[in-house]
């Protein structure tokens, strides 16, 4: 079978709604795109632990502390699970982490924003996990089996995070005046980055035709974004919070919430490395890697000694 024929068969399989599995033939570009996407997703889970981890020691009640610890632990688990999913495509975890640490691989730009108050922990759960769920529910319908299954499993936990986050915000928004101000301030700072988190607008988005044809994504960024907006705006209102967008309005005809202009210049600036925390986040990961070198070496050395001892004993 030549490549053209293989690609045709591959496309037919995808069109019929079947999942592609790790061992099967796939176009090189399909493999490349998915590897990039899954590893970026894994990196996002890991880097995302940092802004939230920033509040574990300062959570204002023991219940909140426990819930936050569990959430950040879940995110580490997601990272682990996603690195494994990417490994099915023939890349190893070490290579992916090297790419992250050297700045060649991206992670979700939203984690380059700081968590300045406790309300930011609510805002992340509500908005960032909320946006992630809408996106990942779409990705769960994608064609690559291991990634699609990872999304199904991860989404269940993200829903829990999303509810917890909203509950924090709702509670603050209905608390003392200071707490309410804290919640509104967090929403003001996290709203637009969350909107942008779902990717460039369809007009600007590159190579989406192939991505859609191969069902790497099954819906466009703008479609997913609109779904996120429609579910989130009423939640803000229910909590008594104001979406920081003077142009926001409900379109009676379409039944959708319409937002104002998105500031894409800021989005691209942060992606290019010039957000409030880009350097801090990367430095934290690089330090963990550097500080951990002797631990990994020791573990390897001990394992080697054990093997040698086993041989000697036999």
């Amino acid at each position, binding site marked *: 079978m030549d490549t053209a024929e293989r690609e045709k068969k591959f496309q037919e399989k995808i069109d019929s709604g079947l999942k592609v599995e790790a061992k099967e033939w796939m176009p090189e570009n399909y493999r490349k795109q998915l590897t990039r996407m899954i590893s970026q997703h894994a990196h996002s889970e*890991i880097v995302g*632990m*940092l802004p939230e*981890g920033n509040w*574990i*020691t*300062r*959570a*204002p*009640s*023991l*219940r*909140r*502390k*426990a819930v936050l*610890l*569990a959430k*950040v*632990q879940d995110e*580490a*688990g997601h*990272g*682990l699970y996603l*690195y494994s999913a990417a490994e099915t495509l023939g890349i190893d975890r070490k290579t992916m982490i090297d790419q992250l640490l050297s700045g060649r691989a991206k992670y979700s730009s939203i984690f380059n924003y700081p968590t300045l108050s*406790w309300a930011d922990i609510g805002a992340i759960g509500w908005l960032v996990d909320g946006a992630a769920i809408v996106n990942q529910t779409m990705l769960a319908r994608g064609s690559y089996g291991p990634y699609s299954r990872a999304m199904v499993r991860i989404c269940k936990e993200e829903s829990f995070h999303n509810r917890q986050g909203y509950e924090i915000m709702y*509670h603050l928004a209905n*608390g*003392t005046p*200071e*707490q309410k101000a804290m919640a509104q301030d967090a929403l003001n700072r996290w709203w637009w980055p969350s909107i942008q988190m779902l990717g460039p607008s369809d007009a600007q988005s590159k190579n989406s035709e192939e991505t859609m044809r191969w069902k790497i994504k099954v819906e466009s960024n703008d479609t997913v974004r609109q779904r996120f907006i429609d579910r989130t705006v009423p939640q803000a209102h229910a909590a008594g919070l104001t979406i920081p967008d003077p142009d926001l309005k409900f379109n009676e005809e379409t039944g959708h919430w319409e937002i104002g202009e998105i500031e894409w210049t800021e989005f691209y600036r942060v992606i290019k490395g010039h957000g409030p925390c880009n350097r801090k986040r990367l430095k*934290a990961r690089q*330090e*963990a*890697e550097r*500080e*951990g*070198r*002797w*631990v*990994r*070496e*020791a*573990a390897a*050395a*001990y394992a080697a*000694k054990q093997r040698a001892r086993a041989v000697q004993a036999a």
Partner: protein
Amino acid sequence: MTEKEARFEYLIRLGDNALILGQRLGEWCGHAHQLESDIALTNIALDNVGQARNLLTEAGKVEGKGRSEDDLAFFRTENEFRNNLLTEQENGNFAQTITRQYLFDVFQFHLYSGLCSSTDDFLKGFAEKSVKEVTYHRKLSGDWMVRLGDGTEESHDKMQEALDILWPFTGELFEKTEADEILIASGAVPDLEEIKKIWIEETSAKIEEATLTIPDTMGYMARGSRDGHHTEYMGYILAEMQALPRSMPDATW
């Protein structure tokens, strides 16, 4: 001291140990040398915070002044905390965190095992549930003790240094107060002298297996937590942990 006061002190002691250790481990989140260790440390932190919640809630009930777990965690001063000095020591590098963890895990494991036959219903139920968690912690930290102690020269040196720093804080784990005497008499808690024997035996064997040496401190052992006297670290831990609720005392979270 009444039996009620003794129970309160004991619950606070157990609860503060779990809370402060959980707090320390929480600092690691996102910074460990590999994801698996990040998850493991967070898991131990989570178990300890969970235990602290149960213990402090019960302490508040025993006290009978309407204080909740959060009142006790966030609105007591340093002097009122009864956690052992070992739990508040800084994380340092991974060697130091693991050594602190191991020395404490073995203690916590045998203490909880003893509490499983307590005549106090709460302590018995609590210990039966929590000893399962601690069994896993002790296995994890014990394995790392050996792996790092008997790993490379560098890891060995780091572990020995950690042990040298932390060993002097192990003495007061076994110090008894009037509360102990009262509760031992009613069969509510095990005798720390007994726990000490098992602890010494178990940790010594593990330290030897890890090719490490127990430091000679010329008889010196740090003490103070039973009277609410802590190390310099404690003030910073509480400043960080308590700042938000204390800045808004009328708020609920």
